[in-house]
């Protein structure tokens, strides 16, 4: 298997693990009518450090997996995430993307951006939403969650890439 495919699969596996963890948290928090959005974390590493095709493919397939269980047009999450990934991929040469704080900040910003994108698509699709209070509260809760678990998630992704024998160092050099 080629290096790009292994990188895609390693990133995708990390993203799917994150989706399961966040779904567990959402299951527990349902009693509070709160839902966390993992978008920023799904995007950050793929946009900042992965190869162009591998990162986009991992993000897109993870988005399709989210779409499969949601009552939205198939592809909604996938394109919202791919859009955020595209924005930060275009910006990555201007960022100190090897620094963990920068990656965490990008994850938070990508989370906000993709969340707003999802809200815009939902509004355009005519889905009735809860009040602005709940939307802002969920956005804040999502940002806090991203700040708290981003270092763990980045470490998990690095470990998976290491196990797949595709470190990100080559990509970092190529795009610096």
């Amino acid at each position: 298997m080629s290096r790009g495919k292994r990188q895609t699969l390693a990133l995708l596996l990390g993203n799917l693990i994150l989706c399961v963890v966040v779904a567990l948290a959402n299951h527990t928090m349902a009693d509070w009518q709160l839902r966390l959005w993992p978008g920023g974390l799904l995007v950050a590493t793929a946009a900042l450090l992965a190869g162009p095709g591998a990162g986009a493919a991992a993000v897109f397939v993870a988005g399709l997996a989210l779409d499969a269980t949601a009552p939205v047009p198939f592809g909604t999450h996938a394109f919202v995430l791919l859009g955020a990934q595209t924005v930060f991929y275009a910006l990555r040469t201007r960022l100190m993307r090897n620094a963990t704080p920068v990656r965490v900040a990008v994850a938070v910003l990508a989370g906000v951006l993709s969340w707003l994108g999802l809200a815009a698509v939902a509004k355009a699709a005519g889905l009735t939403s809860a009040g602005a209070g709940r939307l802002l509260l969920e956005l804040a809760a999502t940002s806090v969650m991203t700040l708290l678990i981003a270092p763990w998630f980045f470490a998990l992704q690095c470990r998976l890439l290491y196990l797949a024998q595709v470190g990100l160092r080559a990509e970092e050099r190529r795009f610096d």
Partner: protein
Amino acid sequence: MRFSVPSSRAGDRVAAVFPVRLLNHISGQARPFFTFGVVALAWLLVPAAVKRFTRAALFEAQAPVMVTVERARELREYFVLRSRPTGELIAAGKETANALAAYEVGVGRLEQLEADNTRLRALLGMTPGAGWRQEHATVVERDLSAWWQQLVIDKGANHGVPLDAPVVFAGGVVGRVREVRAMTAVVALVSDPGVRFAVVVEGDPRPISYTGGDNPAFGPARGTLEFVPTDITVTGGAPHRLLTSGKGGVFPGGLPVGLLTHVEPSADGLFQTGEVLLPAALSALDEVTVLVPDATAAGLFVPPATDPKP
């Protein structure tokens, strides 16, 4: 980075349908956005059948993970219970035995009523009402977002769960089956803004339109009523109980939905709009019952009439 075009005939064909050469003329900064646009355009051209198949395949691939996670959660609860003191477990067992005895008396009474009902229907020459088979299911995932409210349960087409089947719990209506897969099904909760059906105020036969509504954080789910007759009023301490009307063909009549807590005149002045408080337990359900239409099953299942608590 430059994109190269293979010199083979296959490569020429690829270059003809995909603007690879064009990519080389786009500056590095704009290239990701151009690629995004090309992917979005390609996605629009993908046949709907392919999208449906992919969606179903991805859902089915996730279903075993959801069920396994739920089983792990049950195992955790089992060990939590095992760590309880023996005295506490004995007390809980006695409490359960008392509840079971009370339910046995209730079941006997229901059987007698059912026999009376069948006899009276036969005397009046009425056709027997549609029966329902109860399919108990465990909730494997709760997904209560700001835009949709749904549950995934561990019963699906393999267990005979049909699309649009009503789902209930001890407190009343849970929702209806929105999507059926092989081993799982997605239930749209009664609090989902996309769910709409007819309800009646207890003791009043006129149907009223119910829609899932605004679901604020840290509070019970809510629904809204439209076309409430103007003679229905709500006084502070006595909210009306809402029941399913039985009209519309999805929910059997008489199932508790929630409490009508507030009404106000609608814009046209002919009717009122109302606010419905749904049971707080709705967002923390672990077990539900799917009512599967079954001509051979006798009687109509109606859950105990417990008032929803805010």
